[in-house]
C-alpha cells in the first residue's frame, strides 16, 4: 500500500516537470533499471568515481538547483551554436565533456566561443576562460576603453 502511494506520489512529481525534463527523468530511470553491472572494470570504475565526485558536490538542494542552472547555461550555448553555425556544428568533432585544462567549459563550448569571437564580436581575450564560467558575455571595447582608459 505504502509502495503504491509512493509510486503515485512519484508519478505526480514527474507530472509537474516540463516535458523535456520528464523525458530526461524517464530515460534516467530506464537506464537505472537496465544498469549493466558487468563490462570493462576500469570504465565502470571511472564512471562510478565521476558520479561520486558529482554527488559529493551536489549533496544539497541548492547545489542541485545550481547544477541544473549551470547545465542549462551549457545547453543554451550548444543550442545557440546549432542555430548560428549549423554547418560547423555538423562537422565538429569537439567533445561534450570537460577535460584537460578547463573545468568549466567543454571543448564544444570553447569552439562556439571562438566562432563568436571570430565572426560576431571580439570577446575578452585577456580573461582566462578556463578559470571562469561567465554569467554574461564579456565583450572587449575595440576603440576607446571607457572603462579603464584615462581621459581628461
Amino acid at each position, binding site marked *: 500500500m505504502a509502495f503504491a502511494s509512493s509510486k503515485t506520489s512519484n508519478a505526480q512529481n514527474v507530472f509537474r516537470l516540463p516535458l523535456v*525534463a520528464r523525458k530526461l527523468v524517464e530515460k*534516467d530511470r530506464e537506464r537505472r533499471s537496465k544498469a549493466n553491472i558487468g563490462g570493462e572494470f576500469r570504465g565502470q570504475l571511472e564512471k562510478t568515481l565521476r*558520479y561520486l565526485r558529482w554527488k559529493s558536490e551536489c*549533496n544539497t538542494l541548492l547545489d542541485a538547483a545550481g547544477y*541544473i542552472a549551470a547545465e542549462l547555461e551549457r545547453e*543554451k550555448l550548444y543550442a545557440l551554436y546549432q542555430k548560428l553555425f549549423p554547418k560547423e556544428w555538423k562537422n565538429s568533432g569537439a567533445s561534450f*565533456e570537460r577535460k584537460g585544462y578547463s573545468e568549466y567549459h567543454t571543448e564544444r563550448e570553447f569552439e562556439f566561443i571562438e566562432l563568436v569571437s571570430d565572426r560576431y564580436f571580439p570577446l575578452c581575450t585577456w580573461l582566462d576562460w578556463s578559470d571562469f564560467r561567465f554569467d554574461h558575455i564579456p565583450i572587449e571595447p575595440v576603440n576607446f576603453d571607457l572603462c579603464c582608459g584615462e581621459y581628461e
Partner: protein
Amino acid sequence: MKDNRKKNRQNDTGGEVLRRLVKAPETVNQIYELAESLFWREANLRMTLADIEQVNKYLRQTESEVEAMKKQLRELALIEGSFYAERIPTGF
C-alpha cells in the same frame, strides 16, 4: 491554565509546520531527480532554446517553494527548543 494553552498553541504550530514539511520533499525529489538525469544524459542529447526556457521557468517557480521550506525550518527551529538549525540535514 495559561501555560497549558500556550503549550497547546506551540504544539499546534509545530504540528502544522511539520505537516507542511512532509509535503516539501515533492519539490526536493524533483530537483534531485532532474539534476541526476542531467548528469547522466547521453552526450548527444541536446535541448532546444524553448526546452531550456521551460526548465528555467520551472526552476524559478520552485525557488519560492524552497524559500518557503527554509522559512518553515526556521520556524520549526524556534518552536522546538532543542533543535539545532545548523544541523538540519536539508542543505540550505
